[in-house]
């Protein structure tokens, strides 16, 4: 009897968690389906369901270009981080390296420091060297938070790999480089992929650099475009269109999370709780 009672409590708890996590998402979806006066109906659901806001959003050049910029910049930053971090994490997890603690500690310090601190100097510098309002001008500062994250996730993952196989390959006459490339890389691929997803989510989330280092649709990313979006006309409340744009940029996140749930959880927690 008691066991069943506890099971029911847990079940209720689980339902509460799901509701808590998804209710605000349901709200933004619902808001995006409202139009006209419905936006101010102050109810959760629309009275008339419409896709008008989505049409508005995809007809807004600022938003479509922002989508392109966000995808491009985030992918480039992720690719660079993952390549550099894979090499570094291999060395940290596997090789004799003086200053492991220095590298990991520095990565951690960089990951936790307030990004706003470097925005001013970059703003000044980018204007002088012509990187202001360009993709490169966003990719470079993104590396300041994507690279440490990738290094931590990958180092934690590489430590769990069966490195005996590499030794075996070396015994069989492979060089260290061959052992790394031919034996370990395929084994490490899932971890690298997880790190890439987490890194991409971080880059996709950036707002500080997006609003500070861009000014036009040449490089402005989605979060920045959302914050400055004022609606299709001054007569319409912008909430509907902003909600639709918000839903559009949330869809990829939800897809990644649903498909790779297990890996994301493992990747998120692996680095932090060792020791």
């Amino acid at each position, binding site marked *: 009897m008691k066991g069943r009672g506890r099971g029911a409590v847990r079940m209720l708890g*689980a339902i509460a968690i799901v509701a808590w996590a998804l209710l605000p998402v349901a709200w933004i979806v619902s808001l995006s389906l409202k139009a006209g006066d419905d936006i101010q109906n102050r109810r959760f659901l629309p009275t008339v369901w419409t896709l008008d806001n989505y049409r508005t959003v995809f007809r807004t050049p600022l938003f479509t270009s922002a989508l392109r910029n966000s995808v491009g910049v985030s992918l480039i930053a992720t690719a660079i981080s993952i390549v550099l971090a894979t090499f570094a994490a291999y060395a940290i997890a596997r090789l004799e390296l003086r200053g492991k603690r220095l590298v990991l500690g520095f990565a*951690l310090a960089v990951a936790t420091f307030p990004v706003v601190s470097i925005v001013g100097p970059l*703003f000044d510098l980018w204007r002088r060297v012509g990187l202001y309002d360009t993709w490169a001008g966003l990719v470079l500062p993104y590396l300041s938070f994507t690279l440490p994250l990738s290094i931590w996730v990958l180092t934690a993952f590489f430590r769990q790999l069966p490195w005996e196989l590499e030794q075996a390959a070396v015994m069989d006459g492979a060089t260290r480089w061959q052992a790394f490339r031919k034996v370990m890389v395929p084994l490490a691929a899932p971890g690298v992929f997880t790190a890439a997803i987490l890194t991409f989510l971080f880059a996709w989330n950036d707002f500080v650099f997006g609003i500070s280092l861009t000014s036009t649709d040449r490089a402005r990313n989605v979060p920045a475009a959302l914050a400055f979006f004022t609606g299709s006309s001054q007569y319409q409340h912008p909430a509907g269109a902003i909600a639709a744009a918000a839903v559009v940029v949330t869809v990829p996140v939800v897809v990644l999370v649903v498909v790779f749930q297990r890996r994301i959880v493992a990747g998120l927690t692996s680095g932090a709780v060792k020791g």
Partner: protein
Amino acid sequence: MTTDHEDRGVPGARPTDRGRGERRLAWWLTAPAFGVMLVVTAYPMLDALWLSLFSYRLTDPGGREFVGLRNYAVVLSDALWWQDVWTTVLITIVTVSVELVLGLAFALVMHRVAFGRRVVRTSILVPYGIVTVVSGFAWRYAFSSETGFVNGWLGLGDFAWFGHRASSLLAICAAEIWKTTPFLSLLLLAGLAQVPDELGEAARMDGASAWQRLWRVTLPNMRASILVAVLFRALDAYRVFDSVFVMTAGAQGTESVSFLAYRQMIGRTALGLGSAVSILLFLSVVIFAALFLKALRVDLVPVRGAR
């Protein structure tokens, strides 16, 4: 975690050729990542330090003038700075403590729930993955007396959430808590998984209630993961920016320190003064982290074989 490098590098012994070669390879593999991190953060940071010693506005480059530490004196003697620090500290304390309790409750549920485990874990990742600006808008429109349903659900009529300081801060905290509790709860869940079940079993045999088992057995054994999770989240909460920008733009005394730095540097293009704010923000984070690590003796960089 057992294979180690005892076989190599006996202290004082001459490193073998292979050891030296491995070290060189390790160095070459790490150098690019380390170098890039250094260039993209340390360089702008030093630049900020340098700029903070000047009276310098982008709109008036000719008027650039060395003023020593005067910018710091200006910032530290300004009531606005202290109000923003207090606001940020308040947001940090409220969100982190609520999140710790909620996150722990979530972790306990997720740890035990058998049915629908995948659904729960997937849903909880949605707030984690969602763009902070999107979360800010969702909560802003939910609370807003023009568009929102919160007033209707709570029977508050036309209450203007964003017209008062306390309620604006509450709305910002709600958005932050929703967005970041999942991260905390997943870290705690991982810590919970490392507590051996036998411990709780033994306590149960000895007649300990569920509550006692939680406080006397489970939580003490999760100490390390709780501290790490709290530190990470506190440092993250202290740089709160996106939610404040989207929800209130700093109105009603809700400006955070990050927002102040941004407003000075980008909004007013007062690079000198803004850089001083940035450096102070950075220093306060470093000091907090150092004190936290020192006081609670947490080692964040567990390196294999270097215990």
